């Protein structure tokens, strides 16, 4: 294992985060905090409880998950797309570094950033709404698994994309709608039965549901199913990455 290479990639990526701290960390935290202010404190106080939880508190896991998903994808996709775009990828490709080490470096950095942002949002949420975390270990598992999985997904997008427009298409047109419709702001039990069934095809439902369960022991789907679905998505991303490095897709001519 080329530990120095993993460390170099990780440090380089993290350095960019801290160099652009306003964009990387402060901006997502501020925008998510606005959700808490508007939907939690302002509108939330006039809304009914959901499954016995105040609406503001109900929102917290979904909003954290929304940030984790979008930030993981955005950080990891940009992390690998940028060296491809400016041409510095030649150095990684010509270095004695394995695909696994490359993925650990880039995905590890992207997932770390997401975890940092998720933790800051969680702490911020506590300022606006009453919070309780009944299963902190499960919460951590979901947080870490989701960060890694969606950072891998972002890494795949960063390799697939051949323009900045394509880099944004999947996060904006697929991930954000899936997250909004995946029970971040409501329980899927509030939907008509037919929409409940359709919603179960949305993978984000399982992430939000499992994550929310770790806070309040309420969920739209069984916690084990949520964990298995997260694991399945991780597996699918791993298979894709294996194929990418095996074939050199969009990396090697």
């Amino acid at each position, binding site marked *: 294992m080329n530990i120095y290479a993993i460390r170099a990639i990780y*440090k380089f990526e993290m350095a960019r985060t801290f160099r652009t701290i306003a964009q990387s960390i402060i901006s997502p935290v501020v925008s998510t905090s606005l959700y808490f202010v508007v939907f939690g404190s302002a509108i939330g106080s006039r809304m009914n409880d959901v499954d016995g939880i105040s609406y503001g508190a109900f929102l917290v896991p979904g909003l954290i998950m929304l940030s984790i998903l979008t930030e993981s994808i955005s950080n990891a996709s940009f992390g690998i797309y940028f060296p491809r775009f400016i041409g510095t990828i030649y150095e990684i490709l010509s270095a004695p570094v394995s695909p696994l080490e490359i993925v650990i470096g880039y995905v590890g950095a992207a997932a770390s950033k997401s975890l940092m942002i998720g933790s800051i949002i969680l702490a911020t949420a506590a300022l606006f709404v009453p919070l309780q975390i009944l299963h902190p270990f499960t919460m951590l598992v979901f947080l870490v698994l989701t960060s890694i999985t969606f950072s891998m997904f972002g890494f795949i997008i960063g390799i697939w994309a051949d323009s900045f427009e394509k880099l944004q298409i999947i996060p904006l047109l697929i991930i954000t709608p899936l997250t909004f419709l995946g029970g971040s702001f409501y329980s899927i039990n509030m939907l008509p039965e037919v929409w409940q069934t359709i919603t179960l095809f949305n993978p984000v439902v399982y992430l939000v549901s499992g994550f929310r369960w770790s806070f309040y022991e309420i969920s739209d789907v069984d916690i084990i199913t949520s964990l298995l679905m997260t694991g399945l998505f991780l597996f699918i991303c791993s298979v894709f990455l294996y194929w990418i490095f095996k074939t050199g897709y969009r990396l090697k001519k």
Partner: protein
Amino acid sequence: MTSIIKIENLSKTYASGFQALRNINLEIREGEIIALLGPNGAGKTTLISIVCGIVNPSGGRVTIGGYDIVKDYRAARTMIGLVPQELATDAFETVTATFAFSRGVFGKKADPAHLEATLKALSLYDKKDSKIITLSGGMKRRVMIGKALSHEPRILFLDEPTAGVDVELRKDMWNVVRKLKESGVTIILTTHYIDEAEEMADRIGVINKGELILVEDKDVLMQKLGEKRLILHLTKPVTDLPAGLSAYRLELQNQGKSLVYTYDANQSESADIAHLLDAIAAAGIQFKDLETRQNSLEEIFVNLVKK
């Protein structure tokens, strides 16, 4: 001298169907500077890219220091450093940070002493904390070389290293390359500047349309393929050559003011020249000065790729 890189039957056909390399066989000797010459699209960069692991070959085999570039890619790649043609740098990073990154990805522990020595050798020490975006084009080119040297490679690939840099900087680069050679680094250089190859290389390889059409020691090549000319500047212009000189490849130029004798540099024609000068004197032709000229590498190269 032992081979450090062995390229056997290497070929590359891109997905578009374009055959960039055709059955290349080449051995590169440890410690030498070999220059690969060829017109645009000849396959020079593809060859370098395959050896460095950036492009997948379609066929053939490459070993570096005895290690296969596919099976033993770690051991093989640890030995190489690459300076690509394009100025690809992390614009918002500092020089030191990019050097440290390069050393790290090549599996080497940080070494401040080596970092400092590299910065000084490339006259970048004053700029070590500057962001790359603030540097001039020539400085960026130095940064690219520094990055390639940051992990102390035994082999350095320089793909058009002086493209677009001014004359002074080019000479500076040549000095850097010479020092590297003195330290035992093997250098593979592609260039459009023939004078660069002429100045730097021990051996010359010519690639054209994906084929390696020639590899030769530079001096041997220039001797073998270089025609030589003896030019006599005459005291008085001559309109016709006397019959006694018809046995020699002579030509009157410059309105009869110069007499040019063309001969093969590879032949030992010194005796002929002595006889020629005697014959010229016997014909009553006098000259005030003489000079010899040899074909430049550029002329040799142009003749080769024209074929």
